[in-house]
């Protein structure tokens, strides 16, 4: 009889814990068509000019943000979600910009320099509460596949957008903010001194044989 009482007490406790957990789960925002935003580069970012332009290949984009919900941008106000993984957005933006500058190789084998990207932050960051602070931060390991030499290139993009009272405006502002910070990060990477130095060190005169187009020139 005593054991049954203990068991009943345990069962009641378990039921209460489950009930609280279910309540908390119900508060979690869920992606719906009306709270999903499509973040992409509005126009390709112009790259800096290299003395001898190499061909790049984006081998991999890895999420290193440690964020368990990378697609959830804003938790409050019913939530705002991305339509794709941040890694896919960054990869697409990089490839688009490199392609527009004629710096993207057709495949991994024809590339002079292979880029592996580690994404540290994509989304909104801590702010004063008066506005939205968009931030995109990544680090790229640029590698010459022939020599095996590597160089690290860091890039950060930031943007501040106005806060909004209405949910619809907040969604619009967050989307613009993220697009602006993505553009800023791409620009920081493609026009950065670090990339210029990395290309100068890794892509030497003797490597011209790796690029058939460069050899012809």
């Amino acid at each position, binding site marked *: 009889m005593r054991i049954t009482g203990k068991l009943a007490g345990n069962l009641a406790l378990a039921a209460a814990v489950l009930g609280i957990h279910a309540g908390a789960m119900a508060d979690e925002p869920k992606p719906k068509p009306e709270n999903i935003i499509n973040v992409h580069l509005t126009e390709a970012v112009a790259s*800096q000019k290299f003395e001898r332009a190499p061909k790049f290949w984006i081998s991999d984009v890895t999420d290193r943000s440690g964020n368990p919900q990378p697609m959830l941008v804003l938790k409050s106000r019913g939530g705002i979600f991305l339509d794709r993984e941040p890694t896919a957005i960054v990869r697409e933006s990089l490839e688009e910009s490199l392609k527009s500058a004629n710096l993207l190789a057709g495949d991994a084998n024809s590339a002079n320099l292979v880029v592996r990207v580690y994404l540290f932050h994509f989304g909104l*960051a801590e702010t004063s*509460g008066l506005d939205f602070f968009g931030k995109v931060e990544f680090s790229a390991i640029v590698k010459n596949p022939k020599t095996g030499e590597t160089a690290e290139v860091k890039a950060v*993009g930031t943007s501040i957008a106005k806060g909004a009272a209405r949910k619809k405006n907040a969604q619009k502002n967050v989307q613009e903010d993220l697009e602006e910070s993505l553009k800023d990060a791409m620009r920081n990477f493609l026009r*950065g001194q670090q990339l210029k130095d990395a290309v100068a060190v890794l892509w030497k005169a003797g490597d011209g044989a790796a690029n058939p187009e460069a050899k012809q020139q």
Partner: protein
Amino acid sequence: MRIWIGLVILAQLTMGGYSAAKGEGPVFKTAEAKHFNAAEGVELTPAFYDYFYAELRNELKKSKLVNDVIGEGEAVDDADAAKSVIINGTVTEYKKGSAVKNALIGFGAGMRSLKVDADVQRRSDKQTLCAMQVHVKVAPNWNEKTMAKFAAQQIVKDMKKELGSQKK
């Protein structure tokens, strides 16, 4: 007589248009804001400096003092270096403030305070064009990042005041 009046009005309109255009034009081609450093003993999170950097760039864009606000570490053409500036600085003091002091004493006691030293350097020869000292105070219950916003606004306002007269 009518011709003379017409000519005077035309001359005034031309001069007015010229001075307005001259006053609104950007002073520099590019401006690069750096992440500010912390002086010894200043305890602020890295997120604060990130936000301060973003706010400073945002305020620079709004000020129309420069054509293009570039990111940290971006390359600039040699031809544009003489008309480009770099803004860097140090957070020299941060006081958390005290809500109790603020409530009991008032008159500015217990306020959160932030002191920032900033300087604007010409990119080509690293000559300091202007140096600023900014002191921001907010209520102790306000978010510390609000101070970053106000400090960035103050820096750009001071820059405009100091460098606004240097036209291209």
